[in-house]
């Protein structure tokens, strides 16, 4: 008896929520980035589970696309973090509040 897609969805929801909490509560830019990766992974899980439930392969294709975009995002994002750190000696996003109204 295989595990139904509903379970995977529920697990993905839990992981997504954890990721969201991480973004909202942590101020280290790196950890926030990791939280985003966690959320992306949660979504990927739903794709794969749905792909199996529907008997297609398109879900897996979508996951691969998400991975590519995530990889690109990580490269650029980390470069930005390093750049900010070089100038400000901090990785805390709370201190980068120059755009405050």
């Amino acid at each position: 008896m295989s595990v139904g897609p509903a379970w995977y969805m529920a697990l993905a929801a839990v992981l997504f929520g954890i990721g969201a909490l991480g973004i909202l509560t942590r101020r280290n830019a790196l950890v926030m980035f990791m939280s985003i990766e966690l959320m992306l992974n949660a979504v990927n899980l739903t794709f794969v589970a749905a792909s199996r439930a529907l008997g297609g392969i398109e879900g897996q294709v979508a996951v691969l696309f998400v991975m590519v975009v995530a990889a690109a995002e990580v490269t650029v994002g980390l470069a930005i973090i390093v750049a900010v750190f070089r100038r400000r000696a901090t990785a805390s996003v709370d201190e980068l509040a120059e755009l405050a109204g």
Partner: protein
Amino acid sequence: MTDVIWLVVLFPLIGFLALLFFGKRIGEPRAGYLGSATVIVAFVLALIAAFDFIGGEGEAHTVVLFEWMPSLGLDVAFLWDPLSAAMTLVVTGVGALIHVYSIGYMHGDPRFGRFFTYLNLFIVSMLLLVLGDNFGVLFVGWELVGLSSYLLISFWFTKPSAAAAGKKAFVVNRVGDVGFLVALMLIFSSFGSLAYGEVFEHAPEVLSGGMATAVTLLLLIGAAGKSAQLPLYVWLPDAMEGPTPVSALIHAATMVTAGVYLVARSGALFELAPTSAAIVATVGALTALFAATIAVGQKDIKRVLAYSTISQLGYMFMAVGAAAYVAGVFHLVTHAFFKALLFLGAGSVIHAMADEQDMRKMGGLRSKMPITFATMAIAWLAISGIPPLAGFWSKDEILAVVFNRGGAWIALWVIGLITAGLTAFYMTRLMYMTFFGAPRWADGVEPHESPALMTMPLVALGVASAFAGFINTPWRLGFEHFLEPTFERFEVHLAHPPDGITPWILAIVSVLVALAGIAIGRRRYGGAMPAETGLWWDRVENGYYVDDVYGTTLVLPGKRASQVMAFAFDAKIIDGIVNGTGTAVRAFSKALRPLQTGLVRSYGVGILAGAVGLLIWFLSRGGV
């Protein structure tokens, strides 16, 4: 030839543009030659084009230049008919003479070129006014002559009184223009067109009696503003602040007659509204008498002539109001000659007296300025109505027609007769104070005859003033036959002088009145200058203080209202709304600013809240 009638307008226009852009470079006196040449060419062209009408053969001719406002069916089109031909000839003829005169008069003025620029602009505008084939072109010319009049009155704008006079003329004319504009709107809404042919032809079917009265009364307001009739005459005496050639051309011979032209041109409308026509005649008669009494008390030679002009324009209004359109236009033509001559003569005197305009400081100029004196004497007798000079024929035709209407019109005839006597009196006063008696010159003034450039136009106008009357004598109605087609075209009925012996009796009466006026004037001013002091002289000299009355009743409340509008309504309420908008936006932004914390995590909360909100919405709608 009539097809290229637009050439008449084109030449002065070329002169205007050339002078406008290169006036300074062309310099004195060539700017004057250029300006004069273009107007002379225009006059010659107009004369050639008018030959057909003189022979009584020509037909009214419309020349469409281009479509102007197709949605209104409005074209820029010229109408060449006897009336516009007569007006064109007066404008270009007198205009050319005054252009030539100005070359001498404006000699040495630093803005010599600019003066001729304005003068040419005026000629162009006036030609548009008289040649237009519809009320639209007429109105454009109407406003443009107002503009050039303003520019020329305040030509010496460094003089505060000149600047104020220009402003006054402009504002008072605006009052009349409002009436004119409303009249045009009514005409357009009634006829769906502004073209003369369309409007006048269908006027009897389209216009109800009340509407005709309304339109014509509004036209009268416009005409009264431009032609300085009661109660809008106040700008004309002040307009004498302009250079004298301007006074002669614009404020005596041509522009101020635009109102008379307007009424004559709209004869088909006035025929449908006898009440309005009677009001026109009454306004004219009262203006004639009122201005003549003021002219008696003026000390400034140009102001005498200004009030005289108002008075003579009143005569013309009386004539066109009495449906004596031919007599009115006839008087317009003769008046253009002798009043331009009087102004130019006065200018010559002022020139000789080193810019002195007060007649009490003149006297005895006869021998020093023989040509000026001789020509002005012709004009003096002409305006007084002494046969066989021009003024006699035109003035008497007006009086005869008014008398012939009978009934209440006899009262207007009496007023006209009294005015004729007064006219003879104050003109005699002017002549005697200026040319006769002992010199009362200020120290160091050496009067001399003016140069030939100035006296030649005087002589030409003198000849015209002497003989122009013969174009329309009771035994040879040349001018009437000339003009008739214009009015026959729309079946306008012309009022005529009485037949038989009556006109001769009337003429003898009016000549006797004129001679009486001259005799009284001669007796009073022939010897030493009588003292003119006392309550009545004071009142008359100041024009019955009408300006002061207008000042306290109209201008002051207007200024007060403007002040309230400017400093209370505009500054507080209008600006308040504008500033209030800004303040409200600022306050709103200020209230919202704290939202923009700059903290990425706060924004994250917002995003998540949005996601949750969307989810709630989807779920509450029952689907996913």
